[in-house]
């Protein structure tokens, strides 16, 4: 394992590519989210849209928090968007991320209009900026799911 402190310094000085070696911890699933996670194993990013007010929701759920309706439909996102905000986590990583290299945590605004927490991967630190166009990639957890992360679209 790379010491996070040293890796952070190296990254800041050398502009190393970050997010190439992230762990992919398996999320807990339940009856509401099982379909979402199965789709990720097929490279598809789903979200929910309200049958009543038509608003999209993230994180996806079988309820509309915008209008209180119980009826929603799962839709497939294009998997493209832009960076709304980002940070490079250099110290204090938890659980499976502890002791690893610095990584990018971000909100990506999908073209469908919702902002989702994710990682930006396969990116040079100097490339990182708010507004950067990105596209989804899926990292297999080995447990019936894949984490939707994003890499530069260009």
């Amino acid at each position, binding site marked *: 394992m790379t010491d996070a402190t040293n890796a952070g310094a190296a990254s800041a000085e050398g502009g190393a590519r970050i997010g190439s070696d992230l762990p992919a911890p398996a999320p807990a699933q339940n009856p509401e989210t099982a379909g979402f996670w199965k789709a990720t194993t097929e490279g598809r990013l789903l979200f929910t849209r309200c049958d009543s007010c038509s608003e999209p929701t993230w994180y996806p759920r079988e309820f509309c*928090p915008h209008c209180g309706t119980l009826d929603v439909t799962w839709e497939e996102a294009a998997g493209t968007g832009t960076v709304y905000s980002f*940070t*490079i986590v*250099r110290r*204090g990583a938890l659980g499976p*991320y502890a002791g690893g290299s610095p*990584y990018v945590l971000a909100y990506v605004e999908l073209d469908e209009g919702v902002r989702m927490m994710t*990682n930006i991967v396969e990116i040079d630190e100097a490339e990182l900026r708010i507004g950067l166009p990105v596209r989804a990639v899926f990292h297999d957890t080995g447990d019936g799911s894949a984490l939707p992360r994003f890499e530069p679209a260009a």
Partner: protein
Amino acid sequence: MSIRGQAMIAGAFEHPLRKIPDISIPRLHAEVAAGALADAGLTFADVDAYFCAGDAPGFGPLSMADYMGLTNLRYVDSTDIGGSSYVAHIGHAAAAIAAGKCEVALVTLGGLPLQGPAFSAVNNPANPEYAFENVFGTTTPAMYALAAQRHMHEYGTTPEQLAEVKVAASHHAQHNPNALLQKVVTVEDVLNSPYIADPLHRLDCCVITDGGGAVVVVSPAVAKRLERQSVTVLGHGEAPKTAAGGRIDLTHTGAVWSGPKAFAEAGVTHADIDYASIYDSFTITVIETIEDLGFCEKGQGGAFVASGALRAPDGGLPFNTDGGGLCNNHPVNRGGMTKVLEAVRQLRGEAHPAVQVPDADIALAHGTGGSLGTRMGSATLILGREA
């Protein structure tokens, strides 16, 4: 019904230590409770309402009421909205007292994050958001860093402006012999400290401390019987802010809602606020909060703090004169209690003379809980010196 003037803070106590290796968490709650009750001139037998949050061990208020022998309770509340809980508890206690439900309300906070894993409501896989957020490696500093990055992008806030919040806090902490960090720091010191999560450096982050505190909220009738100077609860507002189903805006806090409610109930304006305790988990927390409370225009928080406004006793908005969470104390990663405690000191004229605001009549205490980057509790109290 308004709570204005219907309840008083009669007792307040902050545990003097910041590292406490040889104590249990229940005993810590009992120690701070005893301290606040002694400050008020009351005893455990007088307590008829008890308030605690997730840091209290066991089965909500039941375990701690049992441990402390609180047998006269007729009102309990274990609202947990993170670090803002204890600010909200005082508002809830005041409302309960105003409604005649109780007369002597005890609020406690205590924990030992330096001795072992602390209670965390956030890192729980049962939370519905966990699978869509925590799996990506969220950390508390990273959540605030996301907010800082976006605020800098939209409003041009600079790292130097963020750093000034820490610098001001350190100027206050040098006078607090109990503060964990008593050394005055410069903007350069902050910027030269290592990044924790860009753009936040180590010195943009609050301290982690063992410890705790307690307050006793009483009816005006009880306060009248006590010798100790009380502080009047004038107004309270609270408002959780959510991730809004994918429409999250990282540049504001729940203070945009809790602040106006508190000001309206208190019947005071910004110009009336002599001192403010502003939750300072991170430097960005202060900048967004003072904007949202209306002490400056939205987006101008950076310039506002860079003007020296936060520095006591002469700044326009002297803040966190105990050194705040950034330098003094942030027990159990929950800073709402210490925000109230320093506001009480200021209104009693018992802050350190170097940072005591002259003739402090009206103070504001604001609590933040959870994270600016996702979902957060927000609670605002306005307090007044006893007439």
